[in-house]
């Protein structure tokens, strides 16, 4: 027990420091700009306020980013999550819209099961392409990224399916114990994924495969299965996010639902400290990353800047985070700081290697 605690302390010590710092700075800046920013009030037994909104709105992104974290940790990437969001949302909404009683719980549950089912199939498709056929992940998932939008529109027949279902809407807008249900779902998913990876040996094996695939193979790991599983997990997470996004607006739009969520999710993962090259993953970092992105979006909204222009800020954040993480950039900075440059460094022609 003390061991886990010390480990936890070690993790918070450095891994989450920067994300937390960024989040705190953003919240502080917002509070200065708009003193009421952090205030939360109880209304009708529910909590309301900007922080609560940020939590609620970030829930889908957290979900998608959780799955993405695991995929990236294996050394892969999943570009198709945006399409998955659209497909699963559309499937569930279509089924519910066809029911005589849209408020019936069994109907909603069946709809959700169908959405999840189709996501499982698509996730397995990605997994087979990557783990069995051996196509590069970025290319393999590009296929569904392109075709998936079409599939989503095929399901909705190009329409925006509007539903009027209380239970379904609750996924996005409902409250439980004064808190938005969405954030509770996201939190539960995070705990589930954490349990799934950390209570089993899945997490360690994934990190091992992503960290050094050849060494893992020689240690007897059959990486195919875990990689396959990672893509399925990512699809399931995306599906739940899809339910949430469509429930928020009580309608499914094959075109717009989950647009660019894959990019935000990748960004959240990278901000959270998981390296794009794979290896160690940090679920808590990813959640923070998602919160940072949502806070950024909300702040920009609050300043009356159009959400599209928020992309400008996002671009700056992406570049800053990547530069901080890039070893080449760090090396350059430290090199400049140390020792007066005697001669301009020759362009790196070969990595200096010390004979073992």
């Amino acid at each position, binding site marked *: 027990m003390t*061991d886990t605690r*010390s*480990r936890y302390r*070690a993790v918070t010590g450095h891994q989450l420091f920067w994300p937390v710092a960024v989040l705190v700075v953003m919240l502080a800046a917002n509070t200065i700009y708009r003193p009421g920013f952090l205030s939360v009030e109880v209304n009708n037994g529910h909590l309301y306020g900007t922080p609560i909104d940020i939590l609620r709105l970030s829930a889908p992104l957290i979900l998608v980013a959780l799955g993405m974290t695991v995929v990236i940790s294996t050394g892969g990437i999943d570009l198709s999550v945006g399409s998955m969001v659209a497909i699963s949302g559309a499937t569930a909404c279509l089924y519910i819209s066809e029911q005589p009683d849209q408020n019936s719980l069994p109907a909603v549950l069946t709809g959700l099961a169908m959405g999840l089912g189709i996501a499982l199939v698509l996730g397995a498709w990605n997994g087979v392409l990557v783990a069995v056929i051996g196509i590069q992940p970025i290319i393999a998932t590009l296929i569904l990224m392109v075709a998936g939008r079409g599939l989503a529109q095929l399901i909705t027949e190009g329409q925006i399916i509007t539903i009027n279902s209380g239970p379904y809407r609750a996924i996005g807008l409902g409250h439980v114990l004064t808190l938005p249900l969405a954030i509770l779902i996201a939190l539960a998913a995070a705990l589930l994924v954490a349990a799934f990876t950390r*209570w*089993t*040996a*899945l997490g*360690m*094996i994934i*990190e*091992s495969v992503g*960290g*050094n695939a*050849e*060494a*893992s*193979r*020689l*240690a*007897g*790991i*059959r990486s195919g*299965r*875990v990689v396959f599983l990672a893509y399925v997990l990512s699809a399931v997470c995306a599906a739940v996010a899809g339910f949430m996004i469509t429930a928020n607006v009580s309608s499914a739009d094959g075109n717009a639902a989950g647009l660019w969520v894959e990019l935000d999710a990748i960004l959240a993962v990278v901000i959270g400290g998981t390296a794009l090259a794979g*290896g*160690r993953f940090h679920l808590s970092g990813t959640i923070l990353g998602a919160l940072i992105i949502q806070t950024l979006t909300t702040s920009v909204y609050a300043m009356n800047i159009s959400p599209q222009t928020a992309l400008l800020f996002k671009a700056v954040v992406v570049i800053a985070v990547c530069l901080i993480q890039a070893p080449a950039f760090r090396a350059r900075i430290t090199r400049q700081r140390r020792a007066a440059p005697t001669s301009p460094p*020759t362009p790196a*022609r*070969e990595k*200096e290697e*010390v*004979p*073992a």
Partner: protein
Amino acid sequence: MTDSRPVLTMTGISKSFPGVRALHDVHFRLFPGEVHALMGENGAGKSTLIKVLTGVYDTDGGTVTLGGTEVSFAGPMQATGAGVSTVYQEVNLCTNLSVAENIFIGREPRRLGAVRWGEMRRRARALLSRLDLDLDVSAPLGSYSLAIQQMVAIARAIDVQARVLILDEPTSSLDADEVAQLFRIMRQLRDEGIAILFVTHFLDQVYAIADRITVLRNGQLVGEYPTAELPQLTLVEKMIGKELDILEGIDEQPKRDVAALEKGTPLVAVSDLGRSGAVEPFSLAIHAGEVVGLAGLLGSGRTEVARLLFGADRADRGEIAMDGQPTGLSTPARAIERGIGFCSENRRAEGIVAELSVRENMLLAMQAARGWLRPIPRRRQDELVEKYITALQIRPADPEAPVRNLSGGNQQKVLLARWLITEPRLLILDEPTRGIDIGAKTELQKLVAQLSDGGMAVLFISAELEEVLRLSHKVVVMRDRRMVAHLANDDSLDADRVMQTIASGSHREEVNR
């Protein structure tokens, strides 16, 4: 045959890296029209010397003269420009481009900025015909065999009026016919007056083509010899170094009764196992409790044998039987299930997962065997890790330290622990003591002896003969990708005889069937 004046002279070359003295006061001469072999075991400083010569590294001391003038190249490109070209072990060309382009890219014949393809092809054909090669120069390089690619690389190298051609292990992935082709071209270039520096691990090849031999050991010059005056045995001795005095200083393992061990069915019996391009078919029997030493020079096929046994590479012929039952070891996972462990010599690329902790690295193989659904209970993990950190004296003794922060020797121990935890019946150790200090080395050797006493079979691969001799019950000798002898490690076996076998490749000492 040779001019009296060397085209290239390196004098008093020294080079250090943090913590390592790679070269110390090395002299080297190269005459026009000779093939000069540079020999030495791993860490002898061959590649460092070449990199100093071609300007990849700066020297800490010493001078390089080319054709009488002192030179100091800023990089391989500048060296090439001055007539010193290098062809590396891995063909460093672009297989997607045509043969002609690979020869000329970067200096294509052009008119008004446009590449003159016809002219380029014509010149490529001319150059290749000088090497007696008749290739379709507009075909992509990838459609030709590695040997041809290697020769195209040579064509590229000599096109710039090379005076010195460095061939860095060009033959390591070629078969006999291909080597013969390469040699023909080397002889031709030599007769044209080009000085060839030839690095290889194959003794036969050295004696087939080299006019002179320079031997390095531990970053120091051992000597320069005309090939005719250096018998193979002497060469091997000079490369490996006879450190018999040290050997005698340490207690030897009492030689155990090999005959008793070898009664009954062998734990692993291999017949005719082979993989083309890696190792010739070989047979080998390993019994429980037996330590089999695999001796041979670097590149002689030691690692390839281990990889086939472990299923890391797929054999294309032959059979493996365990306890008399035929068994396929097609993947490492299968091999581990059958009770085999394999400590790779390439610690960083094939051993540790640098980001993960000591604990995770240790438990990886066991966990892999259990499957991800059955995690090892935390208490058991801690017990196991604790046990091996203590037993192997791993420093720092922190199970949660990322393994990349450990020293090489400690990383090696972590890997060893990874396999000991799986309680294998056969443990393959590939160069387990390389690059670790003498204390750790003795500990490791003791451990191997203990394990075999406990009934574990060990296949012990090492470049250090005394180590192999001290530990093994049986020594299997590899040479030029062939298993040439099985020697019982009785009182009559000593380093000299093993070296003789390595040098001559004779089968006469065969004891096992």
